[in-house]
């Protein structure tokens, strides 16, 4: 009897989240489940673009946390979302990152660390579709070094791949997300310099609840939790700026 009652009560929440959110999201889910014993959250991480393509075919997710604002916007236009607009939950911050063993003192050189002669390859995410890639390119342009470094750029499929390039030593330096630079696996393995936030358009992270969500109520609860103080603290901790800050 009890187990049946339990299954009746526990609701499953299917979350699709951009890969770059993984560490923050894990923390959030932990806290949320602690508070809401009746909800079990299952998160699937992946590329926002993939999720968009899949959600366009009604992939069975309840809520989608994208790493940008464009994909959720399009889902709203397609009338796949519950609300009339995506919810904005965090704003990404871009940094220039090197491995701890790099001779380049990125903290002091700032943007000029990209111009150090020993730098052969600079990894960024693909500006065509990755938000951090777009940010990196605008920053390079507004800081006036784009022409100089263009030939040294290599493009990751997403910001995580750009990070791999630097992490494996294949690229000497990279422009990645602060959230990744702070993430446990990388935190002690590298040094970074944050790009001034006025050099690139804000990397707005937004999300939507899908109208086919099996469990709209927990989804709504989770959305509110993420947007609430507790959620904001977590995002802050993991290297995001917050909407309205």
């Amino acid at each position, binding site marked *: 009897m009890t187990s049946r009652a339990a299954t009746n009560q526990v609701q499953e929440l299917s979350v699709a989240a951009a*890969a770059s959110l993984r560490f923050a999201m894990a923390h959030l889910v932990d806290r949320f489940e602690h508070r809401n014993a009746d909800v079990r959250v299952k998160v699937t991480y*992946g590329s926002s673009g993939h999720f968009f393509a899949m959600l366009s075919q009604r992939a069975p997710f309840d809520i989608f946390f994208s790493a940008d604002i464009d994909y959720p916007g399009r889902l709203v236009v397609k009338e796949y979302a519950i609300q009339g607009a995506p919810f904005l939950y965090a704003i990404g911050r871009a940094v220039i990152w090197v491995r701890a063993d790099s001779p380049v003192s990125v903290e002091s050189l700032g943007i000029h660390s990209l111009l150090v002669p020993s730098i052969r390859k600079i990894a960024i995410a693909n500006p065509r579709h990755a938000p951090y890639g777009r940010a990196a390119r605008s920053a390079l342009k507004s800081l006036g070094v784009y022409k100089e470094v263009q030939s040294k750029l290599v493009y990751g499929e997403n910001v995580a791949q750009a990070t791999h390039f630097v992490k494996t030593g294949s690229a000497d330096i990279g422009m990645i997300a602060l959230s990744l630079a702070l993430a446990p696996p*990388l935190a002690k393995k590298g040094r970074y310099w944050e790009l001034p936030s006025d050099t690139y358009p804000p990397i707005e992270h937004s999300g939507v609840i899908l109208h086919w969500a099996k469990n709209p109520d927990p989804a709504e609860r989770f959305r509110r939790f993420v947007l609430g103080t507790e959620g904001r603290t977590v995002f802050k901790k993991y290297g995001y700026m917050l909407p309205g800050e």
Partner: protein
Amino acid sequence: MDWTALWLTLKLAVGTTAILLVVGLPLAYWLATTRSKAAPVVETLVALPTVLPPTVAGFYFLLAAGPDTLLGQGYQTLTGGLLPFTFEGILFASVLFNLPFAVRPFTSAMGAVNRTLVEASWCLGVSRLGTFFRVVIPLSWAGILTGFILSFTHTIGEFGVVLMVGGNIPGVTRTLSVAIYDDVQALDYDGAARTALWLVVFSFVALSVTYSLGRRRWSI
């Protein structure tokens, strides 16, 4: 180690190769023996999915099997569900996408079977089907093994199609290769390495055994 993912991977790989054997062997035999002008066209069609990037192929599969298409609606009326984001979906896509890795080796091996032996079997009163199983298949064994191994390993490693069609749902469509991919994306290099090592060791053992068993004792 993600045991459900391993289990799912195995299920997918075994299912895919099993279906490929059932579908591929007759198709290959037809291709190997026919003099029809259509044969090269069919062979080409079979090979075509491979030239597309897997994720993109998966994307087109999603489009083709979605609820708005004839295919999707037909499947829905038949089974009550849709293919995308289900195990059946990735199985189906995986079969389609691995077809050339099975059918091509099958075909080339069956084409090399001595025609006189087939005739000898017929003249001994054994039907075409019987001859196929008792003469053609054993004599093209090396090629069948090749198709088997290539499609098996490729299914295990493939994640583009599976990710797109399956939606990376744990326990349903999240295979080991998708899991490893995720781990790497999440910078969890150690986790990825552990899983990859497992996968490699497991595959190593499976392949070694297959190769050793697959060596034939007779000679041509």
